[in-house]
């Protein structure tokens, strides 16, 4: 159960941090037009196609005692990031990044630009327009972003193995735990954990699809009633 709790903790941290990083970035990518934008879009989508081992390898190098992130951490907290929970979080942020940013961009872009112009003409600056118009109207996208990055982080294997290793209670997540059990031919335990992961993933995806179908009016109603 340690492994499951660790995975849930990791996925929660990652999906929430990503939401805060992803929101301004998605806003920028959705509404700004500049020539080099495609370059940034490609970088954002990169973790989707990169083998987790490749991503994990570079993450490990960056987080290691001689890598830039590792050095910063060493200077600030007097310990490195490789094979720690924090290191795992940083690597997972990279890995699940597109799963937060893409739904956010899609839902921001789906908003009628005239609504944003109407807000501006009525005297609202960018921040107010974001808080009062963009945010409530892209609530389904925000829920999708959080849920998808949560589920994706929960299920990761390669990156975690590369960066975190396999330290019980520190970096041994569910997927690695399952792998360990299979390696030691403990199929019953492996099955138990795999089933839990399967159920959680299924539940999470049901939420995403359910929310995207029904969220429209209901969530607006909730939002407005607060």
């Amino acid at each position: 159960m340690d492994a499951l709790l660790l995975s849930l903790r990791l996925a929660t941290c990652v999906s929430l941090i990503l939401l805060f990083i992803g929101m301004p970035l998605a806003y920028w990518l959705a509404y700004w037009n500049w020539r080099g934008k495609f370059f940034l879009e490609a970088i954002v989508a990169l973790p989707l196609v990169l083998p987790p081992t490749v991503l994990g390898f570079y993450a490990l190098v960056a987080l290691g005692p001689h890598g830039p992130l590792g050095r910063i951490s060493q200077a600030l907290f007097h310990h490195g990031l490789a094979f720690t929970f924090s290191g795992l979080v940083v690597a997972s942020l990279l890995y699940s990044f597109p799963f937060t940013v893409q739904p956010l961009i899609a839902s921001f872009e789906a908003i009628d630009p005239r609504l944003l112009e109407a807000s501006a003409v009525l005297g609202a600056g960018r921040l107010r327009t974001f808080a009062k118009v963009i945010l409530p109207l892209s609530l389904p996208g925000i829920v999708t972003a959080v849920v998808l990055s949560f589920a994706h982080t929960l299920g990761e294997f390669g990156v975690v193995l590369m960066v975190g290793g396999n330290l019980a209670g520190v970096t041994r997540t569910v997927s690695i735990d399952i792998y360990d059990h299979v390696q030691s031919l403990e199929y019953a335990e492996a099955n138990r954990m795999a089933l839990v992961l399967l159920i959680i993933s299924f539940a999470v995806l049901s939420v995403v699809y359910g929310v995207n179908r029904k969220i429209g009016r209901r969530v607006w109603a909730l939002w407005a009633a607060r």
Partner: protein
Amino acid sequence: MGVVGGEITSAQLAVRVRKTRTYRDHRPADRTPFVLDVALEIPPGITIVFGPSGAGKSTLLDCIAGLLRPDEGRISIGAQVLLDTDRGISLPPQKRQVAYVFQSLALFPHITVEQNVAYGLVETRMPERGTRVNEALDAFRVRKFAHRKPHELSGGERQRAALARSLATSPHVLLLDEPLTALDAGMKKSIMDDLRAWNAAKNIPVLYVTHSREEVDALGERVIALEQGKMAVSGTPHEVLAAPRRSSLAQAAGFENLLTGTITELRESDGVMRVCLEESDCEIETPLGYSAVGDRVKLAIRAGDILLATEPPHRLSARNVIPGTIVSMEQRGATVIAKVTAGRNAGVGEGVSFTVHLTPGAKRTLGLEVDCPVWLVLKTYSCHVLDA
């Protein structure tokens, strides 16, 4: 410009803008950039901006609201400068105090009508904020829908809500981009009456954009006709609609009959010329254009300016009496639309086709039917000569 109770009551809007736009979605062949280049002075009250689609009407409004940045120009309301490219001044839309009702209205779908109306009043403190919201809700008769969401309203109610939202902020200028096009005449009139009543007190310049000739006739005191980014004509609705210069404006202005012809004779002392229509044997008298015998011209004639007679009329001041035959009749609302062919084409035998509007009563009294022989009666000055 007078200042009463802290509100500017009668500041004129002065606009001089040049804006080049290239539309990316166009095929390369017709990727000629569109240029809006106008200088206008809009006094308080309603001014209609009229023109066919693509004439630059919405571009003009977007420039005034600050949603588009002109290449060059100056926009001011009274003494307040909104834009001056020479001095590097360009206020963002949220600082301009220009209200803008879009064609799509752009009501916020997730909040109620009341919250929509209050949206522009965040900086107003509470007791006054409530008063202003209620004032706007009452002025546009949407108080009883205050707690509904936009999608729960009818088209006219949404329109009223959008006006209330825009005007609650006490803007210095109101821009309306074809907001009433989708509504029926009665609804349109009642909304315009409410807008006029509101503006009788506030007296701000209102720019009302439309491509509909009916709206120009119904609403306008002053009309500015835009065409291909330039101001084509300005004046009263009658002056603007009666004198189309180019054929696209004529179509927009509701000239149902656009005919081509060849000038056969000039009678300069009478100020008229004779034009042979579309290679037929049908000849009519029109006002003199800047053309010579043998030139091809375009003529614009309103369907409502043509009279029908069931026997050859005589002792009439109208100079054009053309025999023809009714080929079809169709009633739309209170208008009967008749198609009449006249004359004969050399060889083909089809003749010239005219569209004539008449009332159902006239149709009954004259006993008009399809295939009836009729005489078309046309005054010389109802035939508008356009640049060919």
